[in-house]
């Protein structure tokens, strides 16, 4: 791929093909329109160039023409809009069961952690054919996670999680760029995404020295910070039972009902009283400034792992092996 003069970016994800298709359509449409207008201008300008003895014919305009060249472009635009929106919908809707990567960006590096616990810096290893969802936040300024070969980009914002997903289709090494200007070494905040065959990936995964899965790390944080004294796994705790929380609706004290997603869990750790669960007192201490972004992602991963099946019938906070088996690549 490191040719000197490429004219087309590599296609290495499932979305890349649909983005390219619309792009090619638009290139053809634009080329046709520009050429049509250039030819018209050239013909008119030459055919009606100024000559002695010939005067311009005064024409006021034509409503028929005006409406035609308003409505026809508008109709074409609407086609492009719907087409573009469908791709966007695809890009913004991660499939269920995607493997999750937690990304913490800072000036000027990418820190990535797999669910299985492997940490990487400025490098991301993923297998071919598996849906991968990234949950990203920033420690300082706004960054943007951009992999041109996958045609995905998502700003990474301090103070909240944003997500993006992809499924790689072709093994290889691809650029990872920071696309949102972030200071001195903005252009140095680059890395690579290494797409591997599933078997190789499995070998890579087991070869690395992972210190336990993210959820397991989160669990030890959970115990260390004493969260378990209130968030017990029965109904007796002073805090809400966290089993089965993620992905479900939560009834708040002020009457609202909201969905418990990663951002909700994040906020409830940092500022517990902001969205208080109905029936509980605002007694939880504030963890803003006490946990790092990495510790926070581990806690979030742990809370997400607490599904009724995972925690067992007795409701004890034991964990099954959190590493989902990589799927076989389709096709």
């Amino acid at each position: 791929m490191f040719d000197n003069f490429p004219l087309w970016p590599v296609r290495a994800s499932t979305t890349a093909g649909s983005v390219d298709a619309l792009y090619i359509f638009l290139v053809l449409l634009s080329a046709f329109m520009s050429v049509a207008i250039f030819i018209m201008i050239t013909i008119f300008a030459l055919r009606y160039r100024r000559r002695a003895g010939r005067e311009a014919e005064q024409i006021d305009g034509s409503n028929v023409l005006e409406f035609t060249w308003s409505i026809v472009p508008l109709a074409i635009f609407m086609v492009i809009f719907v087409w573009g929106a469908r791709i966007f919908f695809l890009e913004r809707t991660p499939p269920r069961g995607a493997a999750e990567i937690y990304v913490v960006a800072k000036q000027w590096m990418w820190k990535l952690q797999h669910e299985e616990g492997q940490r990487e810096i400025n490098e991301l290893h993923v297998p071919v054919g598996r849906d991968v969802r990234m949950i990203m936040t920033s420690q300082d300024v706004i960054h943007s996670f951009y992999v041109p070969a996958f045609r995905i980009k998502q700003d990474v914002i301090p103070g909240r999680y944003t997500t993006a997903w992809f499924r790689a289709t072709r093994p290889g090494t691809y650029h990872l760029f920071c696309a949102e200007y972030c200071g001195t070494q903005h252009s140095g905040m680059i890395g690579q995404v290494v797409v591997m065959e599933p078997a190789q990936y499995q070998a890579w995964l087991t070869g690395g020295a992972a210190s336990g899965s993210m959820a397991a790390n989160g669990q030890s944080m959970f115990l260390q910070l004493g969260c378990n004294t209130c968030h017990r796994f029965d109904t007796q705790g002073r805090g809400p039972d966290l089993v089965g929380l993620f992905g479900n609706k939560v009834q708040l004290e002020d009457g609202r009902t909201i969905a418990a997603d990663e951002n909700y869990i994040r906020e409830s750790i940092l500022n517990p009283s902001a969205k208080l669960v109905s029936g509980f007192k605002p007694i939880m201490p504030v963890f803003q400034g006490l946990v790092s972004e990495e510790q926070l992602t581990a806690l979030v991963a742990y809370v997400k792992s607490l599904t009724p099946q995972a925690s067992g019938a007795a409701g004890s906070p034991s964990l099954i092996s959190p590493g989902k088996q990589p799927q076989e690549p389709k096709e």
Partner: protein
Amino acid sequence: MSDSPAPLALEHTPGLQHHFADMEQQRNASSLGMWIFLGTEIMFFGGMFLAYLVYRMWYFNEFAAGSRTLNLPIGAVNTAVLICSSLTVALSVRAAQLGKRMLLVTLLVLTILFGLVFLGVKAYEWNEKFTEHHVPGYSFHFKQESTEKPVDQGRAQIFFSLYFAMTGMHALHMIIGVGIFGVITWMAWRGRFTPEYHTPVEIAGLYWHFVDIVWIYLFPLLYLIDRRPHG
């Protein structure tokens, strides 16, 4: 200046500028100009009102708690002072229309005094904020009452940031207004205004009323968010 006056121009009408055809055109232009300028002012304050709206929805608890610490009686008195100043402005325009010079000057001086009282009270309030550590920054500390829901320090700072930004911008407009009225008073004292020509009084009045109205919105939005007894 011009060796070729436009046919309609009344060369020696006092107050008529050379490029206008007549007094009516000049007056219409001036008042349209001021109305448009006030439109831009609405957009200017609008940016802060939008920020206020967003954060008040998100962080109602902190906004309510912050609002309760503001000095309500003093804020109310200041509101009354400003409303009085609007009255004197309205009366001064009337005095100018009637050509009563001394009345006009008196009312303008009163307006300036009301404006200065408002600013003085505002300064006193800001000073209170310093002693209470309610000024955003490193020394910020919001001491909450035990009966309240826990207040997040960061979000409380956002309330006070908006409080200072909004009241500060309003005070800046008041200072400019007092300056403008100083000039208008001086012009009135010199007898520049007649029943036929007093556009400056009118458009300065428009400005003053606008600044007044901004405060009429700021007062409830900042001071009266949630004054119910709680517990």
